[in-house]
């Protein structure tokens, strides 16, 4: 039997704290060290301040302003009028909001798990020494090069009912393809497939980083124990990238909630019958088509709360898992 530590423990382990021996002064607390640390902090502050200022002025303040607008009626042109919680109350009685929330949830449920599964498998392939993998390493990055708008236009053409590549291929197989983006049944899966495709490069990069941290010796030990490749993949590699998986799950959940907006706007404009209209797209339409900035801000506020709940939920789960060892 191998005497290796429990699998997965090494990659996720916290670094051991270095403590000074009893009776000796802590080098970190000597006056020279303190001065050096202060200089470091000042230098860091000097370099960070411009970026932080820019972030505060162009991101934080407008975002806070946007949240404040949820309590006003404003059509972009006139003077905002305070309406208190009216827009927040309207959220819960608006059937389109509930439909959009359902669409957003469907995007997350249909999108996140396949993205993680496919991303993990492709990262393992990219990380291997299989013949021809070099070409694959270049190809997997390609979706990241195209902007979301360009990618969406390309996929609209792939999905076309008449002359689209996907339906042509299906036609060769004797299958009549659906009118993908105009069919209430197929439009949502069609968008999710596209979103998974565009999310994969980042997921693969993150998994590659995770895979680099898995120590080689555990595989040698497992090989000695007679574990096959699939067994090693499932019982050793997968648990060792658990922290990466959690990170990817959170990032992708947020991405499928908010990032679905531009894709759906370009590819289906939220249709047909609202089957691809996420909360973010609904908020955009309310803001800039119907110029109901107050209600659009309330929708954004609601979306922010959802994202915060997801992030906090995952943190709680991770914490609970850690506490249970």
């Amino acid at each position, binding site marked *: 039997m191998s005497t290796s530590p429990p699998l997965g423990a090494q990659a996720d382990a916290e670094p051991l704290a270095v403590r000074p021996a009893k009776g000796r002064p802590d080098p970190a607390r000597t006056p020279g060290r303190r001065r050096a640390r202060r200089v470091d902090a000042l230098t860091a502050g000097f370099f960070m301040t411009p970026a932080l200022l820019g972030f505060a002025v162009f991101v934080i303040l407008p975002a806070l302003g946007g949240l404040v607008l949820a309590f006003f009626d404003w059509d972009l042109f006139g*003077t905002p009028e305070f309406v208190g919680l009216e827009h927040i109350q309207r959220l819960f009685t608006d059937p389109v909001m509930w439909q959009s929330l359902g669409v957003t949830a469907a995007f997350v449920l249909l999108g996140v798990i396949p993205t993680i599964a496919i991303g993990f498998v492709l990262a393992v392939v990219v990380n291997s020494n299989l013949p021809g993998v070099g070409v694959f390493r270049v190809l997997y990055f390609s979706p990241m090069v195209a902007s979301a708008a360009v990618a969406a236009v390309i996929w609209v053409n792939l999905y076309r009912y008449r002359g689209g590549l996907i339906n042509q291929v299906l036609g060769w197989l004797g299958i009549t393809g659906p009118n993908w983006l105009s069919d209430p049944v197929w439009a949502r899966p069609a968008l999710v497939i596209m979103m998974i495709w565009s999310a994969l490069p980042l997921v693969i990069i993150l998994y590659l980083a995770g895979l680099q941290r898995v120590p080689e010796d555990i595989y040698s030990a497992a090989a000695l124990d007679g574990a096959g490749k699939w067994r090693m993949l499932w019982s050793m590699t997968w648990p060792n990238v658990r922290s990466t998986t959690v990170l990817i799950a959170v990032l992708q959940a947020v991405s499928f909630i908010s990032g679905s907006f531009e894709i759906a706007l370009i590819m289906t404009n939220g249709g047909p019958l609202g089957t691809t209209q996420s909360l973010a797209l609904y908020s955009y339409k309310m803001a800039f088509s119907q110029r109901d900035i107050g209600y659009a801000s309330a929708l954004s506020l609601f979306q922010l709360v959802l994202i915060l709940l997801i992030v906090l939920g995952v943190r709680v789960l991770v914490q609970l898992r850690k506490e249970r060892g």
Partner: protein
Amino acid sequence: MTSRTTRIRAAAVLLTATALTVSACGGNDPGTDEGAAGEVEGSTIVLTTITGLAPQFEQYADAYMDAFPDRTVEVRSSTDDAAEYSQQLATGRISGELPDVFFNVDFLADTLATNNVTLDLAPGIEEGKLGDLRLDDFLPQFVGQYRPLDNPEQVTGLPVSADSVGLFYNKTLFDQYGITEYPEADWTWDDMLRVGEQITTASGGDVIGLAAPLGSGADQIVFGPVIQAFGGFVYDPDTQTSGIGQPEAIEAWELMLSAFDSASGPYTATPDPTVNFNAGNVAMAIASRGGVPQVQATLVDVDWDVQVLPTIDGNSTAGGGSYGLSIAQTSTNQDAAWAFLAWFYDTDAGMLVAQEVGGAIPPTEDGIDNGIWRDVSPPPANIAIFGESARTAVLLTQMPGATSAVLTEATTTATQQVILEGRDVAEAFQEAEAIVNAALAEETGE
């Protein structure tokens, strides 16, 4: 830092943000910014237009600056997206950076007027700031699109081209599939749908006989006149209600929806550029005169022409409209802006260039009858039909606030419910009418 201090600081940040936002939004109280006449000679004015029209306007500006070398017109290109365009105007309004002259459009005109963005041009025109040109010289329905709903004596924009829709048809495709019955001036909608279906069937679906008249369900320039031809209405300004669910309108919807699958192929939720008259695989399409230059450029070796839109019960079903030019209330170069408009709307100056460069149809009686826009080399041989169409065209109905966007969304949804879910036409459009009327009631406070 204690948690109390953190909370106090967080509250201070939030209050500051609130103050900044509210002051930013409300600081530009409508009516408090005043424009100024400024000087004409040696002036520089900024003219903003949508991206698609920018090349034309650059040529107009060049021609103006050739005629008046000491005046400058700086053309700025914005976006082609209506929502983004109104957002940019709003941003300009808030920051006090509105252009002197800018592109205006019927569905935005009332909002811009209500919020004191656009200058009332009527008094200036009466004073002779456009030379001899008077409001009465313009086609009244085109000017009417720029009359605010609450102040119809005002005019906040001037139409540039009296554009209307016609029936474009590809004779080459008709001949290819053995259809000898070309569109005629006395055609009815039933004729158009029948021939459209014949071509679609004869081609085995390779060619679309008639591009879907309703598009995705949002094409008010088509459904507005058809509903009116049946005796209905899209929006009645007197009662401030929509009638898209009334029996006359339901008849119109049934007729227009009948084109899908038979004559127009399957429904598409978003425009499909591969099924387009310009692509050469559509035998007939209802399209605007403004599209003529593009068709000329793309269908080079194809025999095509235009015809007036078919009628319903003897009523014209041609829709029309025109984008307009407005002057900002806050412009400090208003006299220079007027000078540019005076040159632009002069049939012997700017309108001549607009006809040559943009194929514009001057929105005046004289321009329609005597303009050089008719002198294009065919195809289309029958371009003169657009002159008559302009006079009889049913223009887009101006609706208060952003309710036209609600109308668009509601008719699109109803169309999809009928086509994709098989819902009853009357039920779907009565529900759409209720949605639009609720939005109208909220907007008008009734």
